[in-house]
């Protein structure tokens, strides 16, 4: 630890040291300059001299010492020294000087400045800082953090010397600006945690290279962030000197595509509407903003926003139809079709660059979207009463809805087959006239619904109320929205009732409602009288369809269960109890019902950089080892894990591959290993945090002092040069000034007192 690195102007101390000689020289000169007196009373004088010589010498020495000290103090004061952390440590064992650099590599650092970006400029400044430090004699070490991964430093306590310089420069060069957004609260906390684990006897200076975006320092969680940041900075400034190095600029004009959404359920051969939201974060209105929508490598569509006022958003709609040659699929085995059901289409939405328009931050002008398009909606019909005559089977009319153009991919199994079927590939399951399943299957079904599956219960004559209630209802705990009581109605099919649609309707019956009186001609002869669990109606259970009988029995009830939904009908899907299935209204209702139930699964938030993505992995079909290929083509192996929160003993075959902290924007590919050795890719896209595009800056001059106190100072990149040796902590020149004043007063007082005692009275 070099002594001079404690000072801003160490050479001033040198001057002070030189100035120490001034009083000594004056003293010596004074000795040479004397008067000569021929004296008679020499005896007395010699006597007096003998008695006083030591005292006079001591007094002179003290005065000389004080004057020299005063000179040294002046020099020291002008050298502007500072203390590492507190006084005790200075004199104890301070050994080195550590620069802790927290470099903002958030997306907003990619703002373009000419040919380079703000981040590049910050890197250049950092490198020149290192070069200077390496050539100076002082002893610095470097610890470098990035805001995107503050949990572990890029460079840890590495000495900045000539030998390590090239490596440091290379490391700095290799730094790439991330697509993440900066979380200073978290970053500072991590830095603090890191420093807390380090030696204390080191003089530390913290440089926070930030573009000072308001969004990062105040923003969204305004009630939390500033306080947290202020607290963190206050904590840090007590252990290290703090400088906020402003590496941003004041250009705020920026257009961004903040979001792209599609219809919940994207099925091939149906028109899907994509909504792209464009925001103008700048200060001037943008005219004629062209937005390009491109699916894969196909010809793009371009839509134009005539004018986008500053601070406003505008949404464009791009309809698109993914056509799949169904005829070719018809020949395929259903199982194979189910496996290859999802086709991932990558869609790129971007702003068409316009030379006339300033768009400071290009990365947020594009948006990647992955549309997991289903070539068909996989539906499983479970027949509780199979019959060799198709028309007599329970699921005949349901299965009949799977025709070209509906996008359904239906599979029908019997009650016994259902016990072993892999559920995860289906989106909707109809349990037709099923009254009981094994306990394992029940748990699997419940888990499947919890994960977002759509279940339809259609109990009929095969069902015994007691069993059904035990398995499905369980007094409101089970899947069924209702419990069965008894069969009602007329076995002779003489009396019948119709439907009464509840006010507000239901998506499944929208066709029936839109076409007046279509339900009027229906005849419901028999039905199960049902009971609802207490307090569930209006909460998790709703009843959109009633019977018109005098008891106003339930025809259809819905219950939400986990992420999924369960619809219960009080009659089966065959012709035994009603004449509805062949009715023209039946197919649209079933079709809408399937879409309604299936879409509940597809609802997902846009995945953002820094966020996470989770994919269910059905271990019955896939290996738990999965590979992630990121947008740059780098592959990471990972392991799917049991879904947390589920019962450990449930032995669920549904695992989850979860990727946290996505660092890059773009399209990712998750590769699932099928048990037959083939790879099944799952695509998803991560996009940048739209708020990063808000380039407004924190007015440090206005709020800086209020936020951080006077311990933290802001410097520009240019000013960084002059700061290279500054340490930060507490400059002590005011104390030195006080000490100097006291010293001079003491010197004067002593001089006067010595003089007085000599001249005597």
């Amino acid at each position, binding site marked *: 630890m070099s002594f001079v690195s404690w000072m801003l102007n160490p050479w001033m101390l040198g001057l002070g040291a030189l100035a120490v000689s001034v009083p000594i020289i004056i003293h010596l000169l004074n000795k040479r300059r004397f008067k*000569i007196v021929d004296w008679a009373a020499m005896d007395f004088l010699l006597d007096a*001299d003998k008695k006083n010589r030591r005292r006079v010498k001591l007094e002179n020495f003290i005065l000389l010492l004080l004057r020299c000290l005063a000179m040294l103090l002046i020099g020291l004061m002008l050298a502007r020294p500072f203390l590492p952390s507190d006084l005790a440590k200075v004199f104890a064992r301070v050994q080195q000087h550590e620069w802790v650099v927290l470099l903002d590599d958030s997306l907003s650092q990619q703002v373009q400045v000419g040919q380079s970006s703000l981040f590049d400029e910050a890197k250049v400044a950092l490198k020149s800082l290192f070069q200077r430090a390496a050539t100076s004699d002082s002893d610095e070490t470097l610890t470098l953090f990035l805001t995107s991964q503050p949990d572990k430093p890029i460079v840890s306590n590495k000495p900045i010397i000539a030998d390590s310089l090239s490596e440091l420069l290379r490391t700095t060069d290799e730094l790439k600006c991330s697509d993440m957004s900066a979380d200073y609260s978290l970053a500072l906390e991590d830095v603090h945690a890191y420093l807390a684990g380090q030696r204390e006897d080191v003089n530390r200076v913290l440089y926070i290279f930030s573009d000072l975006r308001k969004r990062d320092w105040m923003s969204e969680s305004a009630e939390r962030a500033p306080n947290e940041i202020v607290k963190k900075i206050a904590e840090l400034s007590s252990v290290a000197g703090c400088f906020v190095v402003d590496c941003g600029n004041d250009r705020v004009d920026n257009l961004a595509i903040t979001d792209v959404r599609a219809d919940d359920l994207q099925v091939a051969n149906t028109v899907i509407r994509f909504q792209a939201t464009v925001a103008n974060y700048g200060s001037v209105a943008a005219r004629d903003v062209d937005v390009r929508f491109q699916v894969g490598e196909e010809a793009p569509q371009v839509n134009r926003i005539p004018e986008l006022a500053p601070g406003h958003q505008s949404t464009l709609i791009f309809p698109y139809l993914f056509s799949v040659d169904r005829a070719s699929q018809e020949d395929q085995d259903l199982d194979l079709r189910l496996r290859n059901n999802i086709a991932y289409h990558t869609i790129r939405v971007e702003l068409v660059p316009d030379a006339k328009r300033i768009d400071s931050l290009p990365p947020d002008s594009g948006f990647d979207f992955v549309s997991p398009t289903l070539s068909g909606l996989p539906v499983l019909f479970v027949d509780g009463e199979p019959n060799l005559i198709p028309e007599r089977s329970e699921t005949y009319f349901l299965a009949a809805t799977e025709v070209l153009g509906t996008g359904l991919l239906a599979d029908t199994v019997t009650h016994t087959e259902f016990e072993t079927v892999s559920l995860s590939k289906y989106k909707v399951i109809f349990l037709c006239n099923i009254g009981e399943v094994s306990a394992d299957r029940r748990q699997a079904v419940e888990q499947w619904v919890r994960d977002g599956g759509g279940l339809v219960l259609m109990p009929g004559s095969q069902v015994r109320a007691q069993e059904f209630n035990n398995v499905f209802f369980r007094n409101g705990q089970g899947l069924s929205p209702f419990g069965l009581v008894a069969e009602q109605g007329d076995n002779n099919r003489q009396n019948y009732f119709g439907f009464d649609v509840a006010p507000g309707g239901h998506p499944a019956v929208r066709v029936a409602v839109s076409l007046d009186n279509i339900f009027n001609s229906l005849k419901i002869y028999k039905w199960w009288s049902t009971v609802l669990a207490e307090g569930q109606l209006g909460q998790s259970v709703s009843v959109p369809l009633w019977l018109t009988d005098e008891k106003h029995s339930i025809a259809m009830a819905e219950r939400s269960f986990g992420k999924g939904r369960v619809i219960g009908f009080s009659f089966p899907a065959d012709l035994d109890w009603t004449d509805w299935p062949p009715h023209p209204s039946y197919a649209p209702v079933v079709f809408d019902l399937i879409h309604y139930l299936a879409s509940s699964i597809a609802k997902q938030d846009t995945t953002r950089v820094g966020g996470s993505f989770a994919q269910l992995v059905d271990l019955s079909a896939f290996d738990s080892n999965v590979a992630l290929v990121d947008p740059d083509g780098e592959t990471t192996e990972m392991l799917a894990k049991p879904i947390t929160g589920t019962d450990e003993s449930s032995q669920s075959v549904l695992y989850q591959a979860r990727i946290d902290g996505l660092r890059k924007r773009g399209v990712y590919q998750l590769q699932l290993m099928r048990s037959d050795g083939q790879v099944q890719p799952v695509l998803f896209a991560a996009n940048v945090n739209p708020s990063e595009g808000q380039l407004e800056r924190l007015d440090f001059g206005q709020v800086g002092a209020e936020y951080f106190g006077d311990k933290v100072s802001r410097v520009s990149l240019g000013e960084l040069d002059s700061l290279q040796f500054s340490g930060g902590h507490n400059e002590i020149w005011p104390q030195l000034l006080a000490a100097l004043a006291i010293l001079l007063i003491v010197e004067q007082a002593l001089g006067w007192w010595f003089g007085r005692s000599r001249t005597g009275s």
Partner: protein
Amino acid sequence: MSSAETSQKYLDPITLDRIKRMDVRARLVVEGFMTGQHRSPYHGFAVEFATHREYAPGDDLRHIDWKVWSKTDRLYIKEYEAETNLKCTLLVDSSKSMRYGEKSGWSKFDYAATAAASLAYLLQQQQDAVGLVMFSNKIEQTLRPSTHPSHLKLMLHELERVQPERTTDINDVFLALANQIRQRGIIALFSDLFLDPKVLGATLNQFRLRRHEVIVFHIMHHDELEFPFADNTLFRGLEVDVQLQTEPRALRRSYLEAVERYMAQVRRVCATSGIDHVLVDTSKPLDGVLSSYLSFRQRRRKQLLRR
């Protein structure tokens, strides 16, 4: 200008310094001193009343006290003590240490010489015999007491002529002098007395043993009494070969204490020997010397009469 101011002026050493001739100096001092007195001090002591005595035949009738006769009807003779001629020897120290002050004006020797001259002049006026001895470590010059007017001139001439050169050593000198001066009289010593007080006492006692009256004019330069030096100074010994470079302010207190201690010793020595000690500051006018001499003289006479 009033007479008092005039006299002060003439008694002031600075003024006197400008007058080179010693006789003029001495006259000015004495006359200035005399003019300063309200009553001339030397009117009543030429003939002093001593006692009454019954008339006896043969006595001069002029001496009969007629006032006593008119009251008592007896004839008494007023008897006066005849003024015997006083013999006064002035001992002037002409050692080198007396030269101090010559650079800044009057040296101690100048002062002592002028004082001695003034005294001689005064005594001459009173018809007393005055002798002069100048000494250092030996007797430099001896002029036996005489009342002759030309004798005064000789003395003044000698005082002007002598340059203080040698060191002081009174031991032998005073012994020799005590033997030389046989006739009882007054010994007036002008010296800075930079001697061992014990030696001083012993030697002065020699005079006392021979029944001389001794008055010591202790000539001290103002600088020696006050030590007013401030700047860094190299002190060189006048009589001893010693140098001391020092910061005078630092030593002043101790120096003054040493001087004070020495003065006390000298005073004690003088007092035990019955010697009058008069401290003379060269910055003060000379009248102090003369008046203290006169008061000394009167005191002695009274003591004599009382005996």
